[in-house]
């Protein structure tokens, strides 16, 4: 398994996504504390960190489901703060939420059709998703609730793809799935990247993240503790960044 499955190199020009000093609160709790990052076009950027670190909050803020307290989110240089979640799809940001969240009373095909309802023009459509996941066409009339976890994950990704995103947000793909299934799903990443999609993903499984990402970003209690290319990181460095050992609270990474 080679490291860095990215289709394209990290572009030298303006980043596709730029997050500047993002702070997000859940009531009194500060879930994200002045987090900054940039994602270039064609990258696979992985967020890692323990439970409660703020990874999903970050994705929810980028997708528009959660309004940040301060800071900015720029897509291609334009601030998306004024856009509601549904409008960000048209701008090119599509999220595959944690836990898949398919529409249980709809069939596989109907789930994809809903995903395509507000699609941008682009290379992805329902037929191409059926090519990507070869088991899907025979099962397309089945209710989404009847699928296995791994199948549901594939449909959820397909539902996001048919909207032709520029930036695809993947939240905890591996949650509740067997490693074999997870690996199979991650094997589809190159196809996504080849079609021009940039991926920002959240992953609990650090080794999986290191395998697929061009850069990783570690969060701990809402703050950045580590970021960089997988090749340049040490196991010890990762461990202390992940668990917050040997670091004084509040000290910069």
């Amino acid at each position: 398994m080679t490291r860095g499955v990215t289709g394209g190199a990290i572009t030298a020009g303006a980043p596709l996504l730029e997050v500047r000093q993002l702070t997000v609160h859940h009531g009194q709790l500060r879930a994200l504390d002045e987090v900054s990052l940039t994602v270039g076009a064609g990258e696979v950027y992985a967020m890692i960190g323990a439970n409660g670190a703020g990874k999903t909050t970050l994705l929810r803020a980028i997708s528009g489901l959660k309004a940040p307290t301060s800071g900015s989110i720029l897509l291609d240089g334009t601030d998306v703060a004024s856009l509601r979640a549904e409008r960000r799809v048209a701008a090119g940001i599509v999220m595959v939420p944690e836990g898949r969240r398919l529409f249980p009373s709809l069939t596989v095909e109907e789930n994809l059709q809903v995903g395509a309802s507000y699609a941008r023009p682009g290379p992805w459509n329902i037929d191409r998703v059926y090519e990507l996941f070869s088991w899907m066409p025979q099962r397309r009339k089945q209710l989404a609730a009847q699928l296995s976890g791994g199948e549901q994950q594939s449909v959820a990704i397909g539902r996001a793809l048919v909207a032709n995103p520029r930036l695809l947000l993947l939240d905890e793909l591996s949650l509740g799935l067997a490693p074999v299934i997870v690996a199979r799903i991650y094997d589809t990443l190159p196809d996504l990247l080849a079609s021009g999609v940039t991926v920002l993903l959240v992953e609990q499984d650090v080794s999986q993240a290191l395998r697929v990402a061009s850069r990783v970003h570690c969060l701990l209690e809402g703050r950045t503790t580590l970021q960089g290319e997988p090749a340049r990181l040490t196991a010890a460095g990762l461990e202390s960044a992940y668990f917050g050992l040997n670091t004084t609270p509040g000290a910069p990474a």
Partner: protein
Amino acid sequence: MTWVNAIIQGVLLGGLYALFACGLSLLFGVMKVINLAHGDLAILAGYLAVGVIAVTHIPAVWSFIIVVPLFAVLGYLAQRTLIQASLSRGVLTTLLVTFGLSVVIENALQQFFSANSRTLGIGSLISDSLHIGSQVTIAYLDLVIFLVAVVVLLGLQYYLSSSRQGRLIRAVADDREAAQLAGADYRHIFGIAAAIAFATVALAGIAYGMYTSFTPDSGSTALLLLFAFEAVVIGGLGSLWGTLLGGILLGVVQQLGAQVSSNDQVLAGQLLFLLILLIRPQGITTSRRMA
């Protein structure tokens, strides 16, 4: 056999109940809103029809052409303003707001139309009856209402299952946030669903006005809300066929009860409702436990 006649009358009455119920079912299925003003909205439509007829002098049967679209618009606006505001505050708030709305509508109608009972005249074409044998009499009006109910429910079922908009409505009903992530403005979709619900309520109200006379407080006194709700529960939430079946069952049981004694008509239906609540709360057609 008067029992056969009673059953047939019950089936036809069930069509009217189903027409009442489908709006309620839609609002609850999609938005989880229990609209306590549902019966009063139907009566409001009836009064609106009275007004329209008085102004335009069109025959009562055609009043729906103006009233139904008007109510659809009303429904969309009500959803985007009132219902959405209450939804964000919780179930208790929506119950209280729709209850308040019920009181406002009933008393506003009384203020502007007086407490006298009204009825929507029906043309001579449909005031006649069909006679089968010596025992069975079917009023053409009842038949027409039943057919309208079936067509509306059929059409709604088809719309929800096959059209893009219907699919979006079902998606938003399943998972509002996931629908947002797919690009759907759920408030607008809710509005569409509310518009459809209000349109069916208007139809039901006009049908009711032709079927019998009504007063400003008929929404509560005629137990229209209760019957609509009972039809939904008996038939099972989540299926419009279930709603039709529930309405028919309710109508039949009521008419059979009326055969026993005229006072027992409503009571028979209530008891059926209680029975279903006890032994099969998800309704006849649904397999999941809903209640």
